[in-house]
């Protein structure tokens, strides 16, 4: 073999940050080939997919609107992933949060009052946490794998929402469509930028990301979470409590996913409908990894992935690309990222006779 692969003694920090960029380049190149193979002009398709949405204020505001739930959920998931707690049921927790927020909003339908919105958000966080508490309980009490339980609960949550909007929460004046009444103003997030859908929730998202950064980088709690993920035996040696940390990770990620659900129904949607998310809960997994599980990185990766949603819609309208291209791009990006990370941990060098003295 002309090449030799060896483990690095230190992870390359430079490549740790370069690797997402490399993955992005590879994804774009693959997209180029893919578009060409599908019979589209790849340059035009990529333009409509990745650049055109950024050229208008409205496009930029939409980017923020789509990025908000992704960042919010991604930040929460990343905290858990750092501890090797794999909550992949954020989609379900988001749904439950949306149901709780929507339930409160509908309960006080027509009421004026500044307290309605905070109450909705509080209910959503509580619902997301409660839903994530199920895998947390099963994991800490019986060692049941949280990946499978949180995922199964996602299907249950989606069916639950569907049962509600087809049943008790259906708009009595809605021509039998499966959707609730539209929320009244007190249950809707204020718009930050006139003429767009940019709502106050996005500001909260930025604050949450900053708080998560402080938590993970400067406090003993974040330190404990990182130790638990990287060396569980060392965490026990240090006297850190594994079960408490698992609870913390799941409640935190569940609560934030629930809050994202509230922002969706009280923001861009404004009512309860059977499908309130285009898979934000799952896509946030990609966002978390692409952002290197770092809250500030996740802000950037959330924006990038949001672009793939808007770009997908735009490209569908402009050049007739199927909507599913978005999912393919997101999957490819994560694939390439996981592959590029090999270079962070290993070094590929040409084979040569070593001329070295023992130290």
């Amino acid at each position: 073999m002309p090449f030799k692969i060896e483990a690095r003694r230190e992870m390359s920090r430079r490549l740790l940050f370069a690797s997402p960029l490399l993955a992005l380049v590879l994804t774009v190149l693959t997209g180029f080939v893919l578009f060409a193979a599908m019979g589209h002009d790849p340059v035009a398709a990529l333009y409509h997919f990745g650049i055109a949405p950024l050229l208008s204020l409205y496009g930029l505001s939409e980017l923020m609107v789509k990025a908000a739930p992704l960042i919010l959920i991604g930040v929460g998931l990343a905290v858990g992933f750092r501890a090797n707690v794999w909550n992949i049921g954020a989609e379900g927790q988001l749904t439950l949060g949306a149901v709780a927020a929507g339930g409160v909003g509908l309960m006080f339908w027509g009421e004026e009052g500044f307290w309605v919105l905070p109450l909705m958000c509080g209910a959503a966080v509580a619902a997301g946490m409660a839903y994530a508490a199920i895998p947390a309980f099963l994991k800490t009490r019986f060692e049941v794998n949280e990946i499978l339980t949180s995922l199964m609960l996602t299907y249950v949550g989606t069916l639950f929402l569907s049962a509600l909007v087809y049943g008790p929460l259906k708009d009595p004046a809605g021509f039998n469509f499966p959707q609730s009444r539209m929320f009244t103003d007190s249950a809707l997030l204020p718009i930050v930028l006139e003429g767009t859908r940019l709502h106050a929730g996005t500001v909260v998202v930025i604050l949450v990301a900053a708080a998560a950064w402080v938590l993970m980088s400067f406090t003993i709690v974040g330190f404990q979470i990182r130790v638990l993920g990287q060396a569980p035996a060392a965490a026990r040696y240090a006297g850190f409590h594994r079960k408490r940390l698992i609870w913390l990770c799941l409640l935190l990620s569940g609560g934030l996913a629930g809050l994202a659900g509230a922002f969706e129904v009280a923001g861009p949607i404004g009512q309860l409908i059977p499908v309130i998310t285009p898979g934000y809960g799952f896509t946030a997994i990609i966002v978390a990894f692409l952002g290197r599980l770092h809250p500030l990185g996740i802000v950037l990766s959330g924006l990038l992935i949001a672009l793939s949603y808007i770009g997908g819609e735009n490209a569908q309208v402009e050049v007739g690309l199927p909507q599913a291209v978005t999912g393919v791009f997101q999957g490819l990006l994560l694939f390439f990222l996981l592959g590029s990370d090999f270079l962070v941990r290993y070094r590929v060098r040409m084979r040569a006779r070593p001329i070295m003295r023992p130290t």
Partner: protein
Amino acid sequence: MNPESAVLVMLTVMSAATPLLFAALGELVTEKAGVLNLGVEGMMLAGAVSGFAVTVTSGSATLGILCAALGGAAMALAFGVLTLTLAANQVATGLALTIFGVGLSALAGSGFVGMPVMPLPKLAVPGLSDIPVFGPLVFGHDALVYLALLATGGIGWFLAHTRAGLILRAVGESHESAHAIGYSVIRVRYLAVLFGGTMSGLGGAFMSLSYTPMWAEEMTAGRGWIALALVVFASWRPGRVLLGAYLFGGVTILQLHAQGVGGLGIPSQVLSMLPYLATIAVLTIIAAGPWRGRLDAPACLGQAFRPPK
């Protein structure tokens, strides 16, 4: 319930169990070699869409099934390159495989939504298939149902009685020991991962060619994840995978029938939750029960290995 409808229920239970059986058996072999591939759902979807598309375009179900197996294996190959050659995290890569599989199958299948396809032909043995009860139960299925049952026995025999099976288990038990003795851990794992992908692909093909002969986005509806749970439920034994798959097939059919008879006043969505809730219940019982034995899980499950050179 009269005998005819009881037979009919049994037939549908077997039908509902078969995709789970395929996927879970494949994952069992993969996990026995020490690799945790969480991308079963993605591989099943790849199999479902390639099986359907090829069958519709070529008119040959055999060719379709073959391509479904290849589609699943191709997805597994991507997983293998990342986790085995590039030593990426198996959990993250498995999740990526599922996300990618959902997107890719939706893209590839966008032109096939709503198209009809002839369901796989049922075996018809003159005389035998007409025996009441026994006839349709034993001789009334399509080829994939039999293939899944054969695979159960075959895999059980392979793992317990062949040298290759012994080596596969050894690699999952201790990759360091296996490497030190001189086995190629990576090669064995590649083969196991590819086999898992092939089986998931076949499970997907059964979904789109027999169980509900059509293509729809995310039509596997979490069956890949249930298959993963089945492997745990079965404590990595093929015979128990069969039992588990038929149990889950039963739950699925039960709730469908309950919906059919008006659902006893329960909303259909709540009944549809049953298989997912049953999965959680079963996982909890397995984990909490007095019979839990940690020896069952391959000791190196989920751990990356790179041979020192």
